[in-house]
């Protein structure tokens, strides 16, 4: 049969236009998406947790002072997590943020103590330094040279930790600035501590950038499909470098806030922050594969862990309990994710007998 006829046959399909397309005719309604979004489920969980603690600790939990305390103790994690969100969105990971954070506190101490740089300028320089460090080490090696992010950030983490020990000799160094502690850390504007205001500002800027600028869309595009992004004209390596730069800058900001609490730079200041931040970002719905997630999700993830730790502390459970429960929740979230995506039937609960063939 001639080739033309085959096309003739096909022409009509074009003309009719409304050829049946099962997937198209029944689009899932909006509420379905909202219901199935991770941000929604974690928000619900957060609210349940708030209600639970509000009921069990009626006098102490839902007070203004306690809420402010909760926010202040979450602010370091919040800042670091915002930066990490950018990196996860482009499909990477940054193991070095904790070490980088510790390193930047010593930069701050050095700028203030040794060079007598005015404290506000020194703080700005510290954040810039953190950003540049992330941009030029992790960013350059991963974004430009296309090295593996796990290996690179493992390397830079070790490197930064080594540098911290070289600089500090294992000692904390007092930062000679009363302003840092008295005004920055403990000062309040309309009753809200300055570090909290700072993290809210960073949150707002990050969320708006991701949602409403071309750069934000580049981040999602690169994380969603790096190859397609490059073939669409997006400067992929620059976008990736900037994501690691932002992670560095946010970690440095978090370092500032952490240092301002005690007024000193410390070698162990970022020891556990990276894993906590990863937990908060992931539980907030940002995917390890890149391309999906949001700053809002991260914010809720951070608050979730903040509330959990605050409530448990008030109820007399120590960090050992907080960690145990936190761990269960993270694994539970991964499980819930799987069930939400593929249904209960997808779970193969056998442990020792392997399936005969891939399903």
């Amino acid at each position, binding site marked *: 049969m001639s080739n033309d006829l085959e096309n003739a046959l096909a022409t009509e399909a074009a003309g009719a236009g409304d050829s*049946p397309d099962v997937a*198209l005719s029944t689009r899932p309604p909006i509420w379905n998406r909202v219901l199935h979004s991770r941000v929604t489920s974690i928000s619900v969980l957060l609210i349940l947790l708030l209600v639970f603690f509000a009921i069990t600790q009626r006098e102490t939990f839902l007070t203004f002072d306690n809420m402010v305390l909760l926010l202040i103790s979450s602010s370091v994690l919040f800042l670091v997590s915002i930066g990490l969100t950018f990196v996860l969105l482009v499909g990477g990971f940054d193991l070095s943020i904790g070490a980088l954070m510790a390193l930047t506190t010593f930069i701050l101490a050095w700028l203030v103590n040794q060079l007598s740089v005015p404290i506000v300028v020194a703080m700005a320089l510290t954040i810039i330094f953190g950003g540049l460090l992330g941009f030029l080490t992790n960013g350059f090696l991963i974004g430009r040279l296309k090295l593996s992010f796990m290996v690179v950030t493992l390397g830079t983490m070790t490197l930064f930790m080594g540098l911290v020990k070289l600089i500090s000799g294992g000692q904390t160094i007092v930062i000679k600035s009363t302003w840092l502690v008295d005004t920055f850390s403990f000062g309040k504007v309309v009753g809200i501590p300055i570090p909290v205001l700072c993290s809210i500002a960073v949150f707002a800027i990050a969320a708006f950038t991701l949602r409403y600028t071309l750069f934000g869309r580049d981040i999602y595009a690169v994380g969603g499909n790096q190859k*397609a992004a490059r073939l669409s004209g997006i400067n992929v390596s620059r976008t990736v470098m900037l994501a690691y730069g932002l992670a560095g800058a946010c970690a440095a900001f978090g370092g500032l806030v952490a240092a301002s609490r005690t007024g000193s730079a410390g070698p162990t200041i970022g020891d556990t922050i990276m894993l906590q931040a990863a937990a908060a970002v992931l539980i907030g719905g940002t995917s390890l594969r890149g391309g999906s997630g949001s700053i809002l999700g991260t914010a809720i993830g951070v608050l979730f862990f903040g509330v959990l730790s605050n409530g448990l502390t008030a109820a007399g459970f120590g960090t050992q309990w907080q960690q145990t429960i936190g761990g269960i929740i993270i694994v539970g979230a991964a499980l819930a994710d799987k069930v939400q995506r593929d249904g209960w039937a997808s779970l193969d609960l056998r442990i020792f007998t392997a399936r005969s063939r891939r399903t």
Partner: protein
Amino acid sequence: MEHVSSSASSTPGQPGVDDALLVATGMTKHYGGIRALQGADFTVYPGEIHGLIGENGSGKSTLLGILSGQTIADAGTVSISGTPIHFSDTRLLRKNVAIVTQELSLALDLSVAENILMSHDKPRKFGRIDWAELYRRGAVALKRLGLDIDPRTQVGTLRIDQQQLVEIAKAVNLEHQILILDEPTSSLTEDAVLMLARTMRTLRDAGTAIIFVSHRLDEFFDFTDRITVLRDGRTISTRKTVSYTKSTLVEDMLGYSVEHYEREGVKSERNADPLLRVLNVNVGHKVHDAGFEVFPGEVVGLVGLEGAGRSELLMAIFGALPEATGTLDMDGAKPLPTSPLHAMRRGIGLVPGDRKSDGLMLEMSIQSNINIPRTAGGLRLRWLKTRNELTVASRTSTALLIQKGSLAREVGSLSGGNQQKVLLGKWLETNPKVLLMDEPTRGVDVGAKREIHNIIFDVRNRGLGVVVASSDLEELMVLSDRFVVMFRGQIVGEMSHSEATTARLSHMATGGGT
């Protein structure tokens, strides 16, 4: 070997339902609110090649998924050789049904033989793997398909068409009673397709039931004994192949009759200067000294076998291969663009061949996908002009007949044809002078294919230069005003539409000279 349709099963001397190898009735499957299958019936006899045809979204893949034990149906019954099978017991299905899909399931770092014998116990000698025996068995399996591949080769180093053949060899080697081939030919060369057809016939004559799916209608008529047509998750007809004609088959598939179509006249302005001249392009060992011209208002068909260097040449022109060297003359000769962005600024667009891996951000909205290339480049801290982007996206989706529901929909949830149109649309919105397209209708159903062809004609009539690379000669015959033929990385000839026949082009593309 012909079998009658199930409705005539009582005729003496013909196989009836009792002889059937696999009977599926009332197959139903929902995905959320989407009804993929609504009571489809399907019967396969031993010793037949059974074609399964239907547009994208007709429920074909869902049905095949259920039959091969990968998907669990909501309702319906399946029996094999008269034994009913419970859905949750997918093991029995997997024991009897082998499936080859386009998504290859090969371990790229292992050898060909190891892949082929993946589901078998490895031959052993003194408690250790007997590698010589393993490779011998692999070689036997390859020989059945007439393949000239060393079983020791690492699969990752093979071309994609060879990998597809290894995948088929692997499934054939399982020696199950039922073999499903889901679009096995889409990445194969003509010779390989003929070889596959021969293998299919041998297997059939030995009693295997083969279920065959393809996007090429001709293959149904050439290969199959019976055909089942699916539409909207229901079985529309099951008849002997000889009792179908192309028009009745397509009518069953689409649900309405079709009329004749003539190819539009060629309107190439050959007296004009070329829009684009490509000179001396080299890409490693893939492309040697390639050069051709594109005039305004023409479609150039880039002919070549899989692996001839077509895609690499297009990628090089688009600035996507840093190792490529050469010259582009577009209002002045300059070296190749250094990045896709650079190429875009010079007025070149590229629709890549693999829309899922190279073309689209599947998790992003239609609107974002269409606007991304248009807004690439320049200061990145600019605001997204949401209203403007909405206008652009709705204009494009209307012009290209994208059936979308909403522009906020994830591209990944669209059908293949609509995804391809989004991919085309995003490049048309950059206002290119030359549009390069690699396999523009790969994995697209017959209706959408025609629509995409119309878009290509429309683009050409607006005076753009279009280059279409494809391994589907028949498609190129429809689309192209002129042909450029590649063989082993070199341009081996040119032909106008009036000189060209599929036979001549295919002769040239296989290195046979002019």
